[in-house]
């Protein structure tokens, strides 16, 4: 499956998964032929780097990440000495490079897609034109656990629901064997990872400043600025000088570093549920000088935990009365409550149709062809072809609850098949894409590993983003799962003018 690489036009078969670095001069040889044009300068530079230098840079990077405390917590995990649960996300030194012209078209596609998704969510919680038109089946929405009836008829500023959208994109060969980008998944609830995008770039510039003087890499460091602008633009009309806060579940959450990082970079307070309270339908935070009103909440807490009076009654992560203040239009919640109805895997197949329905445009970005097991014909096909397909739970996330047919054992396939048959509406299936790979440092040297890309799209007064996004890499040989909870790593992502 490792035959579609980002750096090389062609990978030589014996080059897969094995080290090519002998004596430090031949690192990038033997792993493939025909360096693709946008990688030429980098590949040449890499070939000139002694192995020992790259190794010491890797150690340096790890040391810095630890000292800075750029870690994530793994639920229930223990280190070998039984103490810490803080892990580093492995950072790979070799950047993932995308030529600027490809990015420009991807960016257009992202603006289009996210715009349509926001229109869709607004529609679902208002007139439901798209359901009336029969484009999306009504039961797909109303039977969806992520559909929040509490949001019906609620108007949100600018009609924007998903202020921060993480769109997962992969590159794979199309029918003609030509590289093409596909959207794998839309993340419209609380997408994470943007801090790694920023820290990875900082690290690369620190370790290899010369690369950035030799190459025209588009900068990303202004992301927190755009984010703050987006959040302020989403403030309710009740104030001219909105107070923005980031709401975190707390320091034991796996993405705590990111919450603290973004709050600090934007210069706003990082609050926990216990810091907030609602009085007369306004939200306040407890400060050393008494209560202070809060206007915009960038929440990194799921809907279910936001307000114990409306959602999960046992939750202490949110704030009682928050929904009341929200519906009164006294506070903005970003992303809005109920966005999950649009990023569910069972809704994903309809996104191209949404784009046509709301915008009257042809979709710029491709969807991966998807079989919905709820359709009897699709189910029949899926059951007959489990070994070739990727089957996903509709509500699964984080790389859990999925079957990668070609990599699974017979028993695993059988078990998963039974689960699908027991609850067909709970599953979708997609052909196993030959996800592109990128040269990556592994134990034995440099080897190709599968990657994806998550750009972060911001919707406020306008839809904007910084060039690129977070590239995740599956460090296990042959693995297609890039999630950090499943042993994935990250790379710096370069949008390169060539």
């Amino acid at each position, binding site marked *: 499956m490792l035959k579609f690489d980002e750096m090389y036009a062609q990978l030589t078969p014996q080059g897969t998964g094995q080290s090519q670095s002998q004596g430090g001069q031949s690192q990038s040889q033997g792993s493939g032929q025909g360096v693709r044009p946008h990688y030429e300068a980098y590949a040449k530079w890499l070939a000139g780097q002694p192995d020992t230098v790259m190794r010491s840079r890797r150690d340096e990077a790890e040391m810095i990440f*630890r*000292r800075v*405390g750029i870690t994530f917590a793994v639920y229930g995990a223990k280190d070998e000495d039984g103490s810490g649960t803080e892990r580093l996300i492995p950072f790979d030194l070799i950047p993932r490079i995308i030529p600027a012209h490809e990015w420009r078209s991807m960016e257009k596609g992202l603006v289009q897609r996210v715009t349509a998704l926001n229109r869709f969510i607004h529609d679902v919680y208002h007139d439901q034109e798209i359901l009336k038109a029969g484009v999306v089946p009504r039961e797909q929405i109303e039977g969806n656990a992520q559909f929040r009836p509490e949001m019906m008829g609620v108007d949100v500023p600018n009609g924007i629901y998903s202020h921060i959208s993480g769109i997962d994109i992969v590159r794979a060969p199309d029918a003609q064997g030509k590289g093409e980008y596909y959207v794998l998944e839309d993340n419209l609830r609380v997408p994470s990872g943007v801090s790694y995008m920023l820290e990875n770039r900082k690290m690369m510039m620190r370790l290899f400043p010369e690369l950035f003087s030799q190459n025209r890499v588009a900068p990303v460091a202004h992301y927190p600025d755009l984010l703050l602008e987006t959040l302020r633009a989403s403030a309710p009309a009740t104030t001219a000088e909105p107070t923005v806060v980031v709401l975190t579940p707390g*320091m034991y959450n796996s993405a*705590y570093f990111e919450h603290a990082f973004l709050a600090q970079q934007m210069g706003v307070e990082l609050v926990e549920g216990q810091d907030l309270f609602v009085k007369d339908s306004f939200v306040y935070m407890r400060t050393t*000088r008494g209560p202070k009103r809060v206007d915009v909440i960038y929440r990194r807490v799921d809907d279910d935990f936001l307000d114990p009076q409306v959602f999960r009654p046992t939750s202490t992560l949110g704030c009682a009365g928050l929904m009341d203040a929200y519906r009164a239009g006294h506070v903005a919640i970003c992303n809005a409550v109920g966005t999950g109805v649009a990023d569910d895997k069972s809704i994903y197949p309809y996104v191209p149709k949404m784009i046509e329905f709301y915008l009257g445009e042809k979709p710029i970005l491709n969807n991966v062809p998807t079989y919905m097991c709820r359709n009897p014909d699709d189910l029949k096909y899926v059951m007959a072809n489990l070994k070739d397909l990727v089957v996903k739970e509709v509500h699964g996330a984080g790389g859990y609850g999925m079957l990668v047919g070609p990599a699974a054992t017979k028993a695993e396939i059988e078990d998963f098949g039974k689960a699908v048959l027991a609850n067909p509406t709970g599953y979708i299936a997609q052909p196993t894409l030959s996800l592109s790979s990128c040269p990556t440092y592994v134990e034995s040297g440099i080897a190709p590993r599968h990657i994806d890309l998550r750009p972060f799209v911001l919707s406020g007064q306008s839809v904007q983003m910084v060039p690129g996004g977070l590239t995740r890499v599956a460090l296990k040989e042959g693995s297609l799962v890039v999630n950090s909870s499943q042993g994935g790593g990250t790379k710096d992502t370069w949008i390169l003018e060539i």
Partner: protein
Amino acid sequence: MLSRTADHLFWMSRYTERAENTARMLNVNYETSLLPQSATETEAGWKGLLSISELLPSYTSLHGEINARSVMEFMVSDEDNPSSIISCLRAARENARAVRGTLTTEVWETQNQTWLEVNRMLKTGEFERDPGKFFEWVKFRSHLSRGVTVGTMLMDEALYFMRLGTFLERADNTARLVDVKFHAVENEFMGASSEHEQEYDFYHWSAILRSVSGFEIYRKVYRDVIKPERVAELLILRPDMPRSLHASLNEVVNNLGLVASDQSSDTLRHAGRLRADLQFARIDEILATGLHAFLTQFLDRVNALGGRISRDFLVPSVG
């Protein structure tokens, strides 16, 4: 600023200061134990150290017999002992991590680095190989933490709450040290009869001074042989001795004034009164009425002050 943020900052500093003071006392006891002395004297030293932190009962139930090795282990690396150095450094780091966005990068990285290093040192046996060096290191990290705070933090509430934590903790720790060390000398501290006792006394008092970096200061201030009442005066009443009760209370009052709000005027009054009691006291009067009683009352009042600060700023019950 958020009350919870202020709370974390306050406790981060308190735990850092506590770790430092624990290291100071352990170091002096460790060095004293290297001098020729009777088994009873050695044991009394370690026992006193445990009573300073009110840990004698929990130590005894765990280890029984008092010996240097077990006490040091208990006070340094026992994660179940909330007052051990490792526990204090963990708590300091956890508090820092909870508000890392409020700290400057340098302050956070100093805290985090300390935590990573102490784990490494304990794991690799560096502490057992050279306890003195380890204690010096803990002290040094605390100096660094304080220095990087003053040197890089914006001079606003965040800094003031951190300073408040440092000096409230220091006032508490110094008071405990003085109390226990003076208590340890049974024959009051006036009449040293035999030559051995005189020598013992010298080391006893100079150890106390060294544990608060006060040996050279004593010589400079008094230009005299070491006398217990002067040691007490230095550690309690001298406003220019940085680890004295009076100096600590000065800082508490200053920083409290800087964060003052409508609801805190009563707290400021209490702090001011406590400071005034030190400012206008005389050591002979304190000794005449009883040092132990004086210090017990002082500790109670410092404790009450901490409670008030908590109620006014850190864990307010509004809303």
